[in-house]
C-alpha cells in the first residue's frame, strides 16, 4: 500500500475542502507536515484512521468542523468527508467515509446519520468499480488490518500504550495480520480452503459430503457415523480452543496477581514499620509528659529564686550597708529581759523598779529583741535569701537541658509522623495481600480445572479418532468398490496430502520469516538506539527486550520512552523491510506474497536526542517505501536538514484559531 492523497472536507479544524498529495517518488519518498501545537498534525494522522476504520483516538468523537457548524442555520445540514487514495496490489483505490451533521433548533450540531464507507477502483478497462458493501470490511482488512494500523499510523504521543501492547497482550489477530503482511497469506488461505477449521466450507469437507451412499445402506450408516464423529471432534476441538484461551487468560491473571502480591508484599513491611513508628511516638509522648511534669515541679521550686536573684543580691547588699538598722542585743530574747524585770535587779546589780530609768530602758529594749527583733528578721531573711540563691544555682542549666530533651523528642515525633504520612500514601495505592492471595488461589484452581477438562477432552477425542479411523477405513474399503466414491477418495487423498505438505511448509516458512524479522528488527534497533539491548520475537509476535552488554544479566528490562519508541519503530520498520523484500520477489520465493507499506508517524521525534533524530531521519526513509512525517516546527528544522534529499512534499499547517487550520504546500 502506498498513500497517494488525502482529501478532507470539514474534518475537525480543517474547514472546507483541503487536499494533500503524498510523495510516491521512490527516491524522494518523504512527505513532511510541520506545525505548532494544536495546528492539526495529529488530526491529519487520525483522518486516515477515521476514513479506514470509522474511529479516532480523540476524546471528542464528533469530527465535523466546529467552525463550519457555527455557520449553519437551524435545521441546516452539512457533512464531513475524508477521502484516501492509495495504491494496493497494483490497483488504485479510492476510500471515502462521510457523515452528515445537522444543527437543531437549540443551535447544537449533531450527527444526522451513521458514517458511510465506500471503496472504488479502476478496472482494467478504465471503469470505476465500487466494492460491494459486503466486501468492504474484507478489503480494508486486506489493505491494512486494524490490529496493525496503530503501528503503521504511529503516534509518538501515545507511546505508553503501544509500548505495553508491543511487549505483551496482542490479540491472535495481530499475529495473523503480521503473517499476512510478511507474505504468508497465500499459505494461510490455501490451507483454510483445503481443510479449514470450523463450519466453513473446505475441499476435504466437500469431498466427504460427496460420497454417494445411495446404493448401500451400510455405507450410508458409516457416512452418518463419520459425520457425527467429525462433528463431535469439531466440538471437542472448539472447546479445547476455548479452554486454551480461558487458560491463557487465567494464567495471565495468575501472573498479574503474583506481580501484585509481590508489589503488595512491600505493603506488609510498610504496615509493620507504621506500627513501630506509632509505638515510638506513643513512648515519646509519655516521656515528654514526664519531663514536662518534672520541669513544672522544678520551675515552681527553683524559678522564684532564680528569677529574683538580682533582687535578692540587691537586698543583701543593701542590708550589709545598713548595720544601724539592728538595735537589738545579740542572743538576748524577750524572755531574758522579762526575767530580769521580774527579778528586780539587772546582771550588773542595778535595781529595776516600776518607772525607774532601768525599767524604762529594759521596756524599750523589748521592742528590738526577738521575737520582734529586726535583727533576727534580717537574719532569717538573709538565710532564706542564701538558701534560695543556692537552690537556683543549677536551675537554668537543668531547665534548658530538660527543655532540649522535650524538643528533641517532639522533633523525632514530627519526623516519624511525616514517614507515617508517606507510608499512608503508599498504602492507599496498594491492595490487601490477603484478598489478592484469595483471588490467586481461585484462578490457580480454575487453571487446574481447565487443564483437567482439556485432558479429558483430549482422551475422548483420541477414543473418537480411533473409532473414526476404523470407520473411515471401512468406508474407504467399501468406497473403492464403487467408481464414483473411489474417485472422490482419490481427490480427497490429494487434498489431504497437499494440506499436510502446506502445513509443514507453512510452519517452516513462518519460523524462518519470524527469525528473519527478528534479525531485521534488531539490526534497525541497533542503528537507531545504539545501546546494549537486544530484541526477540515470540510466536505471538510479542517483543521481549533484554540487556546484552551487562555480564551475567539476561532478564527483561523496563525501557525509557526513547527506548520504547525505538523498539516500536524498529519493529514496524522490520515488518516493512521484509514486506518490501517479499514484494521485490528477489528472494526467489514464489510462495510469499506481499507489498510495500508506508510509515505514517505523528510526533515520533519528540523523545529523541539530536543524534537519534539524525539516525531515525537517515534510516527510516531507506527502509520504508514511503514516509509521512508529522512534526512540530522545532523538530521540523532538524528533521528537514537531515532528510533534505529525501523530502518529496512538504506542508505547513497554518493555525488561524482554535477551530480553524489550513494546509499550505511549501516548495521543496
Amino acid at each position, binding site marked *: 500500500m502506498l498513500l497517494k492523497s488525502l482529501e478532507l472536507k470539514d474534518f475537525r479544524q480543517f474547514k472546507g475542502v483541503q487536499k494533500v498529495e503524498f510523495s510516491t517518488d521512490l527516491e524522494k519518498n518523504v512527505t513532511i507536515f510541520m506545525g505548532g501545537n494544536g495546528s492539526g498534525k495529529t488530526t491529519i494522522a487520525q483522518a486516515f484512521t477515521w476514513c479506514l476504520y470509522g474511529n479516532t483516538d480523540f476524546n471528542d468523537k464528533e469530527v465535523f468542523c466546529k467552525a463550519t457548524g457555527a455557520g449553519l442555520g437551524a435545521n441546516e445540514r452539512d457533512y464531513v468527508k475524508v477521502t484516501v487514495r492509495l495504491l494496493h496490489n497494483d490497483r488504485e483505490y479510492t476510500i471515502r467515509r462521510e457523515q452528515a451533521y445537522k444543527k437543531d433548533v437549540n443551535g447544537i450540531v449533531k450527527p444526522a446519520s451513521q458514517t458511510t464507507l465506500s471503496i472504488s477502483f479502476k478496472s482494467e478497462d478504465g471503469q470505476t468499480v465500487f466494492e460491494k458493501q459486503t466486501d468492504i470490511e474484507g478489503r480494508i482488512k486486506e489493505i491494512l488490518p486494524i490490529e496493525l494500523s496503530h503501528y503503521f499510523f504511529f503516534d509518538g504521543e501515545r507511546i505508553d500504550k503501544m509500548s505495553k501492547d508491543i511487549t505483551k497482550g496482542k490479540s491472535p489477530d495481530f499475529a495473523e495480520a503480521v503473517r499476512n503482511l510478511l507474505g504468508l497469506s497465500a499459505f494461510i488461505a490455501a490451507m483454510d*480452503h483445503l481443510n479449514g477449521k470450523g463450519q466453513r*466450507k473446505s475441499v476435504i469437507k466437500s469431498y466427504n459430503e460427496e460420497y454417494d451412499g445411495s446404493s448401500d445402506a451400510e455405507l450410508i450408516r458409516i457416512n452418518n457415523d463419520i459425520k457425527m464423529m467429525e462433528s463431535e471432534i469439531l466440538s471437542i476441538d472448539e472447546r479445547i480452543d476455548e479452554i486454551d484461551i480461558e487458560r491463557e487468560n487465567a494464567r495471565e491473571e495468575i501472573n498479574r496477581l503474583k506481580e501484585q502480591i509481590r508489589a503488595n508484599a512491600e505493603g506488609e513491611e510498610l504496615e509493620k514499620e507504621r506500627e513501630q513508628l506509632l509505638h515510638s511516638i506513643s513512648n515519646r509522648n509519655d516521656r515528654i509528659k514526664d519531663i514536662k511534669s518534672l520541669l513544672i515541679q522544678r520551675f515552681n521550686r527553683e524559678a522564684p529564686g532564680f528569677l529574683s536573684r538580682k533582687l535578692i543580691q540587691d537586698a543583701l547588699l543593701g542590708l550589709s550597708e545598713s548595720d544601724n538598722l539592728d538595735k537589738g542585743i545579740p542572743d538576748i530574747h524577750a524572755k531574758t529581759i522579762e526575767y530580769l524585770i521580774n527579778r528586780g535587779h539587772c546582771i550588773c546589780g542595778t535595781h529595776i523598779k516600776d518607772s525607774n530609768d532601768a525599767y524604762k530602758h529594759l521596756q524599750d529594749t523589748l521592742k528590738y529583741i526577738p521575737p520582734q527583733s529586726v535583727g533576727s528578721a534580717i537574719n532569717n531573711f538573709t538565710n532564706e535569701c542564701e538558701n534560695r540563691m543556692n537552690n537556683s544555682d543549677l536551675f537554668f542549666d537543668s531547665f534548658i537541658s530538660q527543655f532540649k530533651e522535650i524538643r528533641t523528642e517532639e522533633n523525632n515525633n514530627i519526623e516519624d509522623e511525616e514517614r507515617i504520612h508517606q507510608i499512608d500514601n503508599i498504602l492507599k495505592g496498594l491492595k490487601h495481600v490477603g484478598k489478592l492471595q484469595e483471588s490467586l488461589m481461585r484462578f490457580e484452581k480454575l487453571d487446574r480445572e481447565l487443564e483437567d477438562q482439556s485432558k479429558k477432552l483430549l482422551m475422548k477425542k483420541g477414543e473418537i479418532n480411533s473409532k473414526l479411523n476404523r470407520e473411515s477405513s471401512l468406508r474407504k474399503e467399501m468406497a473403492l468398490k464403487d467408481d464414483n466414491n473411489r474417485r472422490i477418495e482419490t481427490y480427497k487423498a490429494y487434498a489431504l496430502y497437499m494440506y499436510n505438505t502446506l502445513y509443514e511448509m507453512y510452519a517452516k516458512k513462518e519460523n524462518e520469516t519470524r527469525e528473519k524479522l527478528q534479525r531485521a528488527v534488531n539490526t534497525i534497533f541497533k542503528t537507531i538506539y545504539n545501546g546494549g539491548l537486544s530484541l526477540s520475537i515470540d510466536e505471538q509476535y510479542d517483543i521481549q527486550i533484554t540487556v546484552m552488554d551487562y555480564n551475567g544479566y539476561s532478564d527483561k528490562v523496563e525501557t525509557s520512552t526513547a527506548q520504547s519508541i525505538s523498539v516500536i519503530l524498529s519493529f514496524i520498520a522490520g515488518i516493512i523491510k521484509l514486506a518490501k523484500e517479499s514484494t521485490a520477489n528477489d528472494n526467489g520465493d514464489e510462495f510469499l506474497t506481499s507489498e510495500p507499506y508506508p510509515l505514517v508517524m505523528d510526533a515520533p521525534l519528540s523523545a529523541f536526542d539530536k543524534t537519534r533524530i539524525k539516525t531515525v531521519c537517515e534510516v527510516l526513509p531507506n527502509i520504508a517505501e514511503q514516509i509521512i512525517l508529522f512534526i512540530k516546527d522545532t523538530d521540523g528544522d532538524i528533521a528537514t536538514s537531515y532528510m533534505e534529499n529525501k523530502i518529496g512534499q512538504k506542508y505547513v499547517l497554518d493555525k488561524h484559531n482554535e477551530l480553524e487550520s489550513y494546509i499550505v504546500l511549501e516548495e521543496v
Partner: protein
Amino acid sequence: MGGIAVEERNSFEVDGIKIDLSIANRLLKRIIIREKQNIKTKQYAGSAMVKEIAKLIEEEVECY
C-alpha cells in the same frame, strides 16, 4: 520450484491411495498461484475458491 521441497520419490501413499508426487506438487504450485491472484483480485469468495481448488485437483488428477 521455489520454496517447495520436491520429493525424491515419485509417489506417496495417503490412506492406501497412491499419490503421484509430480502431480501433487504441480497442483500445490497452481493452488498457491491461484490464491495469490485471488488475494489481489478478490475475484472469488471463500466458498468459490474451495470450488476452484476442487476443480484444479480434479483436472490434474483426471489427466493422470
